[in-house]
């Protein structure tokens, strides 16, 4: 029962909020508390569940959702759960971070006319996301997958009176359609191939094939090779990897807590989860995982370079999210599921923190997003300043912060993989990852120094938060105290909003350390996906004694253990990046300006996302639009007239039959008798023939 409650409590909250808005709109103000409470309850249940799961598996059903046929042709898809430590980790992230963000949003969204709508969507999102990670079959997973897509669409388009938000929502939806189409085809193929959509059964089948191939009998079929590529398309779409990444930066048009929850911490990691969950399916194809790793690494670098030059406060973090997701894909691509999931968890902490602090800055500056207009805000917003500093440290991968451990686990595993297999490709990918690590440190602190250090300057944006307009309307003392100078100067957020951020900051700084040395999540995830490695023919892990840390394998690069090498290297690079950023963007601003002038064209080009959107427009959108125009013309000229004709037909027929309905009993009797006679003749004819 506990697993069932985890998604359904938020679903119930969403329904309740919706009903309240319909029937008791004066209670709308409780929406935030209801939503946060429901997610919190789910979090508590998840904790309880995690103790019962341990390192095993809990399977539980809710009800038989779809059931057709019998015997061999039977098809079943239950609303039922498969919960192993990987699921628990995902659940903890979703409900834990989700709860904190809901608390923050309670303050952030205060006074917004769509207050209840926001929380209804958020609660619905948590329902869909938890269903996604708990599903025991691909169909239910797809339900959650589409559910989060829908909520994402609704939340991006939350400010539906802004054309930009609506366009962004549509873009997210359409780009995701491309990915989902691939995913759906993958699901069809899975059913075709395995005869079931139960994930555990499918994985069992895949492992058997792997073992058979490893022992030299049995072969990988074409279907086996195709399935991972189709699933991959879905994962890339949802997790904003090249070439389906372009919806995520635009998605920042939604409210900032949404960016933190949906587009940084949880939904976009669904692709990583999918690949981690279905890893045996991917191992069946010799090209699948290298493709995943390559796409991940290239995306990581690509997005980092854009983040380097973007002047948009949330845009930098958006590209950085794309980049960090790339790391996670690199991680699963080199069979480092533990690294990928570890990074997923730490990233959820620090990226949520960064987005929320960015939201605070934005909130204080009435919607201002251009970082070039900001500077020296540390005096006005000291708490926000240092909270964001903590997040930036983690993102930059400064030693001992969360990002350091997780990122280096991925890079170390990638290097070890390259050494083990002597794979040039993976050496190259590791190199890309290292370069990205340096860029990450640099662009992160470029932003932080620009905004919080240097001379104090700011320009207010054009948005007026209702909370500011109605100063004193609500009894929030902290807010009221700041409302004295609210209209012309940025102010610190109340502690009701900063409170959750402190928790996130603690996570961003310490989670890595704790988890690294206790081996907590890492061990759990390793354990749950351990079986994956056993029969993997091309994995060297199998033969290793599993005694040492999490089954970690010692590969030596230039005579040094790959992981140690990577830790040292990236520590140096991270610190170098931070120092360089401090030098360029704080101490000697003129260098930055000079460089900007020098590389003006290149920067513009990068800021323009290397014209990817234009290329995409020219290559995909424009032809489609032309085709659409053609179809429209055909539709108007030919089909419409035919349809008008056909639409008119029932009307004419109706008008023709109608006089028979003249209201007279005799004529009705006559109709009946004639009809009987005609049909009797028909039967006679049929008997004769």
């Amino acid at each position: 029962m506990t697993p069932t409650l985890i998604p359904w409590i938020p679903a119930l909250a969403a329904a309740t909020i919706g009903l309240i808005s319909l029937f008791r709109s004066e209670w709308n103000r409780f929406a935030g508390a209801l939503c946060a409470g429901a997610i919190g309850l789910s979090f508590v249940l998840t904790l309880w569940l995690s103790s019962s799961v341990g390192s095993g598996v809990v399977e539980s059903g809710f009800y038989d959702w779809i059931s057709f046929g019998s015997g061999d042709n039977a098809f079943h898809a239950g609303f039922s759960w498969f919960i192993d430590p990987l699921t628990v980790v995902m659940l903890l992230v979703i409900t834990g971070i989700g709860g904190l963000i809901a608390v923050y949003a309670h303050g952030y969204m205060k006074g917004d006319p769509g207050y209840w709508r926001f929380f209804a969507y958020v609660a619905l999102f948590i329902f869909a996301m938890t269903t996604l990670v708990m599903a025991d079959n691909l169909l239910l997973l797809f339900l959650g997958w589409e559910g989060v897509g829908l909520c994402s669409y609704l939340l991006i388009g939350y400010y539906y009176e802004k054309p930009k938000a609506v366009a962004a929502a549509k873009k997210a939806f359409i780009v995701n359609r491309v990915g989902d189409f691939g995913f759906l085809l993958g699901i069809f193929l899975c059913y075709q191939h395995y005869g079931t959509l139960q994930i555990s059964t499918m994985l069992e089948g895949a492992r058997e094939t792997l073992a058979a191939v490893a022992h030299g009998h049995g072969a990988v079929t074409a279907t086996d090779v195709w399935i991972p590529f189709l699933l991959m398309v879905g994962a890339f779409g949802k997790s904003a990897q090249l070439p389906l990444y372009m919806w995520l930066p635009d998605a920042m048009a939604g409210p900032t807590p949404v960016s933190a929850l949906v587009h940084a911490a949880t939904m976009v990691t669904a692709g990583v989860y999918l690949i981690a969950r279905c890893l045996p399916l991917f191992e069946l194809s010799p090209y699948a995982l290298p493709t995943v790793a390559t796409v991940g690494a290239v995306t990581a670098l690509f997005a980092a370079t854009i983040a380097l030059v973007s002047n948009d406060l949330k845009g930098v973090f958006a590209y950085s999210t794309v980049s960090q997701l790339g790391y996670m894909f690199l991680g699963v691509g080199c069979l480092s599921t533990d690294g990928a999931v570890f990074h997923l968890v730490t990233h959820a902490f620090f990226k949520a923190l960064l987005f929320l602090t960015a939201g605070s800055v934005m909130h204080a500056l009435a919607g201002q997003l251009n970082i070039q207009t900001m500077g020296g805000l540390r005096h006005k917003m000291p708490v926000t300043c240092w909270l964001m500093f903590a997040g930036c440290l983690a993102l930059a991968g400064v030693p001992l912060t969360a990002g350091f451990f997780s990122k280096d686990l991925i890079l170390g595993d990638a290097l070890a993989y390259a050494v083990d297999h002597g794979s040039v490709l993976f050496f190259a990918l590791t190199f890309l990852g290292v370069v990205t690590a340096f860029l990450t440190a640099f662009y992160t602190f470029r932003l932080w120094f620009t905004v919080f250090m240097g001379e104090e300057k700011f320009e207010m944006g054009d948005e007026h938060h209702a909370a500011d307009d109605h100063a004193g309307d609500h009894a929030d003392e902290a807010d009221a105290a700041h409302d004295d100078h609210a209209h012309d100067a940025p102010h610190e957020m109340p502690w009701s909003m900063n409170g959750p951020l402190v928790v996130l900051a603690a996570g961003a700084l310490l989670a890595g350390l704790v988890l690294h040395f206790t081996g907590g999540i890492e061990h759990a995830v390793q354990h749950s996906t351990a079986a994956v490695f056993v029969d993997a023919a091309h994995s060297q892990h199998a033969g290793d004694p599993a005694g040492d840390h999490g089954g970690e394998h010692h590969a030596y690069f230039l005579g040094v253990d790959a992981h140690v090498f990577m830790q040292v290297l990236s520590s140096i690079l991270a610190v170098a990046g931070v120092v360089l950023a401090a030098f360029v963007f704080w101490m000697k601003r003129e260098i930055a300006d000079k460089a900007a002038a020098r590389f003006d064209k290149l920067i513009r080009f990068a800021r323009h996302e290397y014209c990817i959107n234009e290329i995409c427009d020219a290559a995909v959108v424009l032809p489609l639009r032309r085709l659409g125009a053609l179809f429209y013309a055909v539709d108007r000229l030919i089909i419409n007239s035919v349809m008008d004709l056909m639409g008119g037909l029932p009307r004419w027929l109706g008008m023709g039959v109608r006089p028979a309905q003249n209201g007279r009993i005799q004529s009705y009797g006559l109709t009946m008798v004639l009809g009987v006679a005609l049909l009797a003749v028909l039967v006679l004819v049929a008997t004769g023939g």
Partner: protein
Amino acid sequence: MLLALSSPMLSHYLLTGAVLFVLGLVGFISRRNMIQMFLCTEMMFQGVVVTLVAFSAFHGNVTGQTFVIFVLTIAAAEAALALGLVVLLFRHRRTLDASAWSALNG
């Protein structure tokens, strides 16, 4: 011919039943007086009754005759209902013409 008529066979009875039934049908369609229309439906029932009794005799069992008893019962119940309705309508319009009642149409 005469012989055939002097010793009626199953088909004669069936024909009688069918003729009664069709007469009722024709009457229902052509009559406008509601009481007459109702009597026509009764005539159709009686056609069926004749048929049932004829079959009963033909098969040599009494099931058909049992059926007839029930049909007559139902016919009686319908008669009561019909007269009630006709009186109700007559009170409104002072006419028994069925075609006066065609406000509902289309």
